[in-house]
């Protein structure tokens, strides 16, 4: 697996919900190797911002050599991205991280659970999963972005905090309300959601993989900025720390502490 940093070309930029943008980037060398659940590092143009922003791969178009990111404007870097236009250049590095273990879901009943800005990686994951896929996606309100894309490759179950669409509440409420069952779970979203899913999976002996987040500098495992606490000693530093950017971002739920 070769990682590269390269200058990509923005193919499209679209606002798809309040503060949520979708961008397609032509970056053939990255796409060649990219897998669902991996992420890329996106570089700012403004020289005062020296660290790249980690953003999940939402969708892959292998023919065009393009990938899609869907991101929330959370601060100055993502704000800068949101002002960029189709046709412009954008520096990106990838593919980064391990991605979801697609082999384990083969022929199984699987939940892809995404909360908020954790929903996007489920698009490509649903596309590539050779399984009986239910996407359970949690949103704040009726702006349920990526609905079409997710429906195409899965049965989609929605939860909204304000109850405007689907189950009122979070993704766990949606499972309960619809009495859903699965053999494997892949999840991405805010820490409280991941914690709830981890507990649920462990109580019900469901194989569960969660995608984690932490502030990053190098994005490739060299700087040790982005660790999470792990059950076992990690092979890199022989302490109880896994590197989210390199050993993750996807971990077996029983492997890590939240």
């Amino acid at each position, binding site marked *: 697996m*070769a*990682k*590269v*940093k390269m200058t990509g070309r923005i193919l499209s930029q679209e606002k798809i919900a309040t503060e949520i943008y979708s961008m397609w980037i032509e970056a053939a060398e990255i796409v060649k190797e990219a897998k669902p659940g991996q992420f890329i590092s996106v*570089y700012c143009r403004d*020289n*005062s*911002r*020296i*660290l*790249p922003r980690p953003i999940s791969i939402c969708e892959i178009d292998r023919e065009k050599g393009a990938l899609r990111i869907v991101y929330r404007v959370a601060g100055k870097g993502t704000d800068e991205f949101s002002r960029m236009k189709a046709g412009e250049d954008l520096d990106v*590095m990838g593919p980064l991280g391990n991605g979801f273990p697609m082999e384990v879901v083969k022929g199984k009943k699987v939940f892809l659970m995404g909360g908020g800005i954790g929903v996007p990686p489920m698009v490509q994951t649903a596309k590539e999963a050779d399984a009986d896929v239910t996407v359970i996606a949690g949103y704040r309100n009726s702006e349920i972005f990526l609905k079409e894309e997710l429906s195409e490759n899965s049965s989609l179950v929605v939860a909204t905090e304000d109850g405007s669409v689907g189950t009122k509440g979070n993704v766990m409420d949606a499972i309960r309300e619809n009495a859903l069952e699965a053999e494997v779970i892949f999840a991405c979203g805010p820490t409280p959601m991941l914690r709830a899913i981890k507990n649920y999976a462990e109580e019900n002996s469901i194989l569960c993989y969660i995608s984690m987040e*932490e*502030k*990053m*500098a*190098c*994005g*490739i*495992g*060299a*700087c*040790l*900025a*982005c*660790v*999470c606490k792990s059950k076992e000693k990690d092979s*890199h*530093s*022989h*302490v*109880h*720390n896994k590197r989210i950017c*390199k050993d993750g971002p996807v971990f077996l739920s029983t492997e890590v502490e939240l």
Partner: protein
Amino acid sequence: MNMKVNLAGVELKNPVMTASGTFGSGAEYSEFVDLNKLGAVVTKGVAHVPWSGNDTPRIAEIHSGMMNAIGLQNPGIDVFCERDIPYLQQFDTKVIVNVCGHAPEEYLAVVERLAEEPIDMMEINISCPNVNANFLAFGQDPRHVEELTAQIKKIAKQPVIMKLTPNVTDIAEIARAAEAGGADGVSLINTLTGMKIDVKRRTFALANKTGGVSGPCVKPIAVRMVYQVAQAVKIPIIGMGGIQNAEDALEFIMAGATAVSVGTANFTNPYATVEIIEGLERYMKENGVEDIRELIGIVK
């Protein structure tokens, strides 16, 4: 055209090295750059036993720079010698091992363990908090610097570079103390201590409260200190702090550095080290510089 420099008796193919802690032991960045091209790889700080480092968040971005409080997470010298040194031995580059510790005994344990290892040099990180001196860093007190240097020199089998902290009143005094203790060279600067407050959450941006500032924002301070130290000591200097490109590297060399280390820039551009080497070559060609050593300390 000669790019070779002699650093404390070790010949580097060019003066561009990595900065400790930003490049691991080279494996991760080897996907981006050919390690054979580097003057030297300086490894992440290693202690006598594994250290698990600080809680997260461990980093924060700041204007033209970053802060880190990794807390020197490392696997300890045993794993390091078994795994990282053999890995680096594969490449035609020099290996400089960065050493950390909380007390002289801890440093000495690592230095002793390194004695028979095939490494070219060691760099002693004296910015670590000194448990015996009220948690000020060793590097903030000239007497401790001289003493620790002398102790290390007694048992070290390879050249010893003392890595200085910039969080001091008079960097020249500290460098002279290292020289007096017998150091074969000094490297500077380590990070400046900073703090960021998240005013929305009303808390510190880093779990550790404070962190070390690095990147382009520290460059003017680093260049000034390298210049000051170059006027104060005769041993060679490894300059670092915010180097992003060949022009930045030249600032340090012209201020008096024999070699330079590239740290935070790797995060902004994983090809930075090799691009800097190429840029130095270009500068030399364009300006008719036959030997890079002509440029060392040329600005006075």
